[in-house]
């Protein structure tokens, strides 16, 4: 047995993309393997889902009764629990079903919906157990994941990134696509962390990092309307990736209603 801190990476309803933040980390991954013991990480090999760990990363949202049981066990076995990505942190794209009749969707999509045993909702991990730290993004990146581990390894509380994408966009000296091209950019209400990738490539932010602190979704929606964006389109922008979290849930519903 090694006395290195133990780390587990668990998965719920998700696309697996956030786990790539570990697998694509390159050199940092080698360094990570020296610093910690990866006891459970199905996508990378090690399998021991019931192990007691110092840090548990959780990807994915809670969508089934079995998920509900599993997350309780993971919480009991983990000293520090970190959600990674929009699914685990906000319910994910699949949280759209919270706003619709999920059973009806199932009936429309599957030939034998009776074989599908899922909850009516897709909910973030924090609705079920205490979460110690949340990493937003669809997907999260290596900088975020390694940053959180680094802080914990050295006894520091990981930094909460909560500013708007615009701050970083301006640091990158991007030209604002909303002001020059009238694009409905979500940067002014979206949490930083991605490095303002989309505006750096000349396109509008679509809010994959969820809401920033103190976000004025009302005023941004009104500004989009001034840019002649249709109400339903505005609603979909707020509900695209993070429909399961306020203030995006309410903002999206408001504009969809106004249609």
């Amino acid at each position: 047995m090694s006395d290195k801190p133990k780390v587990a990476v668990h998965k719920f309803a998700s696309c697996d993309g956030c786990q790539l933040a570990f697998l694509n980390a390159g050199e940092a991954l080698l360094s990570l393997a020296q610093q910690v013991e990866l006891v459970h990480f199905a996508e990378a090999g090690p399998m021991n889902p019931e192990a007691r760990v110092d840090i548990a990363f959780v990807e994915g949202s809670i969508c089934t009764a079995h998920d509900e049981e599993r997350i309780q066990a993971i919480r009991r076995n983990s000293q520090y629990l970190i959600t990674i990505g929009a699914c685990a942190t906000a319910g994910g794209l699949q949280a759209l079903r919270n706003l619709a009749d999920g059973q009806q969707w199932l009936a429309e999509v599957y030939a034998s919906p009776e074989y599908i045993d899922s909850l009516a909702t897709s909910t973030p991990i924090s609705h079920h157990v205490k979460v110690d730290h949340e990493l937003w993004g669809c997907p999260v990146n290596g900088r975020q994941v390694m940053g959180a581990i680094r802080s914990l390894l050295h006894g520091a509380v990981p930094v909460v990134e909560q500013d708007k994408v615009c701050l970083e966009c301006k640091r990158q000296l991007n030209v604002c696509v909303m002001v020059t091209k009238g694009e409905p950019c979500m940067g002014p209400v979206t949490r930083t962390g991605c490095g303002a990738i989309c505006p750096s490539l000349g396109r509008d932010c679509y809010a994959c990092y969820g809401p920033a602190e103190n976000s004025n979704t009302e005023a941004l929606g009104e500004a989009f309307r001034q840019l002649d964006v249709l109400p339903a389109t505005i609603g979909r922008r707020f509900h695209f990736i993070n429909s399961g979290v306020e203030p995006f849930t309410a903002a999206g519903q408001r504009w969809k209603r106004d249609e």
Partner: protein
Amino acid sequence: MGEKDAYLLRERLPLLLEAVQAEGYECIGPQWQNEAIVYDILNQVEQLPHGVQVNQYPGEYCGEIHEGNVRCFAWANGPQALKPFLFAPRETLWRVHRDNDGRLQFESATPEAPKRAIFGVRACDLAALALQDRHFLESDFPDPAYAARRENLLLIAVNCSHPASTCFCASTGDGPVAQAGYDLVLDELDDGFMIQAGTEEGQAIMARLNLIPVTDGHREAIEIQQEKAHEQLRQVPGKQLRDALFANLDHERWDDVAGRCLSCGNCTSVCPTCFCHSEEELAPLDGGSSEHIRQWDSCFTAGHSYIHGLTIRQQTRERYRQWLTHKFGSWHDQYGRSGCVGCGRCIAWCPVGIDVTEELQAICGSDDA
């Protein structure tokens, strides 16, 4: 106009660039990129934004390219002034590592500061630079990174011929004609440029150009152009608004603007005088070293007023009030004047088009001002 002025015919503009390059300067100049006037490396005068005119409105920046229009400086400004060249958006201040005996060793990160010449600098940019100099240099602890870059800067100003609808430098007294702080200053006409030096280095460069005397016709055209540039749509309700602002801290307009404001910080990021920053550590996993980073911050973030577990300015109302009361209020106590040079960037680059001059008028215009 000064007696040592002269005229550079348009076809001889490359000589100016070559003369500056010959002095070993990396040349930076305005260019039309991504739908805006931005500063980038200038290797030849063809890269300048020929025929570009820009319409600026609250929350809107819209350029037009006029084929056949020979002018390269017929626009007011772009999203950034000189600030990013001196106060870097993000940079390493120092590095620390643990040596073999386990002791921490600190080393300062010496910034790269090439000799840099910037073409097309505006009067408001120069006034803003003077304010940033006050902040970063004129203190007991001058900022070494800023100082190194400032030291090596050559500034070639161009007097504004086409202020935008968002400009109000005439009312703050900072433009549209450059008053000080440049090495060379140009006034652009169709057939060329009147050129004047502000420093010995500027004079030396002028001496190497193939110049002709300024004609009376040129002088008259420039006078008319400058006069017209003073006719601006917007203005501040006064140069000293500190007392009026602090007398109105409970004005209902603060709530009104907070309803419209996104608290996104774009205004402070484009403002050429804002200097706030945050700091963070960047360390590898093994904990053997760390880099201490400084990056632009804004009074519109939660971190800006975070003290001992408490964010003092939680809401946009307080954050917007901080922006205006600092820029137009307590700046007077800090630096003896308002922190606004009237460039209008915060108006054009605000995604929802909030106009500081309108807010100031609403808050200070009524009673005390």
